[in-house]
């Protein structure tokens, strides 16, 4: 436990002044604008929106600037800001099948209806540092191609036609949807709550857990059935207007993992699924999310729960980097009273140890 301490107001104020000065850096160097952050550090902004659980590019860019590029600090700022706003309600569920696609790939079928579309990707780059980018680089205009009018069905829909993959779980139209921002976590948790938790979970934590399932800690046998990224329209049922009003479009990344089989005496075997969905272009995040979503279905699919990635209480209780950083970093706050009592206890133990040893050696000397 830490306790409040008095004093130090001046020092704290000066520390924050110094922070503001350091944040600005060399004043001869032009100041970063929010548009520069949003446009040129776009994937950092996406991560702050996903894990801050708040879709707003400008606020995420501001948070990154304020946090000096510390993304977890920025996520913390965004979460704190969201708590100051009223909630108007919930959107109609978005339809990722009607995404304006910027990227869409499948590792399971090379010839998917609608085609494989690489989009803006780091894939197939050589990962060599590019000195041209250091200053004044003007990239060529993007190439133009012929736009296909073909539908782009989800790969899982194609598999579903032949019954080769389990269908997505359905719910009654008015069934309540779990919301961990409203109710504290309790276990066992249903898949809706788990996915909400994973959608805002720390990317590094999910990446490590997803990786652990590939290395044998809770085997999934995954294939990346499909990854798609692009804009999706959002609608909100406005009570005052009396109909679902369009709010605009948001960027989302979706990952459909196709995993090894389930089946029973009564049902033929079929592929199982893991699902990932997150704000922005967040491919590593949604792939990891889909792996962990699948491993957390162990209980439902009658698999033995042996690995961390299959343990929903372990995963969901440790996935949130704002909670995690709060608890780890609180250790640096004053713990003087706690520490004094531990110090007292240790002195007492050492004294007892010394006395015991002293009487022991007296005894030996006497013998």
């Amino acid at each position, binding site marked *: 436990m830490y306790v409040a301490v008095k004093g130090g107001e001046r020092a704290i104020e000066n520390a924050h002044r110094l922070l503001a000065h350091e944040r600005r850096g060399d004043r001869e160097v032009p100041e970063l604008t929010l548009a520069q952050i949003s446009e040129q550090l776009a994937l950092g902004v996406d991560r702050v929106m996903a894990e801050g*659980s708040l879709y707003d590019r400008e606020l995420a860019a501001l948070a990154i600037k304020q946090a000096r590029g510390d993304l977890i600090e920025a996520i913390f700022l965004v979460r704190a800001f969201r708590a100051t706003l009223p909630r108007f309600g919930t959107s109609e569920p978005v339809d990722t099948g009607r995404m304006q696609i910027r990227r869409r790939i499948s590792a399971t079928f090379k010839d998917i209806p609608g085609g494989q579309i690489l989009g803006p990707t780091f894939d197939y780059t050589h990962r060599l540092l590019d000195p041209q980018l250091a200053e004044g680089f003007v990239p060529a205009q993007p190439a133009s191609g012929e736009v296909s009018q073909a539908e782009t069905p989800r790969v899982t829909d194609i598999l579903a036609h032949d019954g080769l993959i389990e269908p997505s779980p359905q719910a009654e139209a008015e069934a309540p949807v779990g919301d961990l921002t409203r109710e504290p976590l309790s276990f066992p948790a249903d898949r809706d709550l788990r996915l909400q938790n994973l959608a805002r979970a720390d990317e590094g934590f999910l990446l490590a857990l997803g990786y652990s399932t590939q290395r044998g800690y809770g085997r999934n046998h995954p294939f990346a059935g499909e990854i798609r990224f692009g804009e999706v329209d959002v609608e909100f049922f*406005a009570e005052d207007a009396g109909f679902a009003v369009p709010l605009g479009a948001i960027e989302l990344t979706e990952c459909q993992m196709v995993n090894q089989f389930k089946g029973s005496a009564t049902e033929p075997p079929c592929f199982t699924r893991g699902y990932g969905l997150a704000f922005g272009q967040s491919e590593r995040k949604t792939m990891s999310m889909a792996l962990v979503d699948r491993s957390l279905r162990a209980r439902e699919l009658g698999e033995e729960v042996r690995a961390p990635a299959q343990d929903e209480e372990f995963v969901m209780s440790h996935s949130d980097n704002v909670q995690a950083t709060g608890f780890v970093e609180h250790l640096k706050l004053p713990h003087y009273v706690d520490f004094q009592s531990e110090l007292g206890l240790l002195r007492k133990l050492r004294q007892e140890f010394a006395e015991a040893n002293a009487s022991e050696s007296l005894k030996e000397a006497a013998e």
Partner: protein
Amino acid sequence: MTKTEQDNRRAQRKAAMAVLAQSEAAEISARLSAMALPDHKTLREPENGLVMVRGRIGGDGAPFNVGEATVSRAAVLLSTGQVGFGYTLGHDHEKARLIALCDAMAQTDTFADAVEAEVIAPLRTAMAARRSQEAAETAATRVDFYTMVRGEG
């Protein structure tokens, strides 16, 4: 107004809102300022809030909460009685108010055609142009993978 007429008008309002929500406040404002506007007042002051965005498990299954988005909203009342509503992603009071004004105008016989022709249609054209440019850039990255047979040749 018959039920069908009402449905049609609602569909038109919704289509207009979709265009306005994806346009910049400055673009809407510039187009509105070039036309005669009806007498109006703000019925609900613009305010910022959150909408929880929902997805579906597997893309087509039961809904779940993905995360929140900021939303601005406002309502405008015309002196002729029509109430317009403005909703948009982001935190932009003025944009919400401008959308509400357009929505109110779209409900009048006097201004509906003008707001469609002077504001919505050009913005829709601009939006379609942005989208088709993006689609063309994206289409250029379409790839055909060939399977190389392993262990032969």
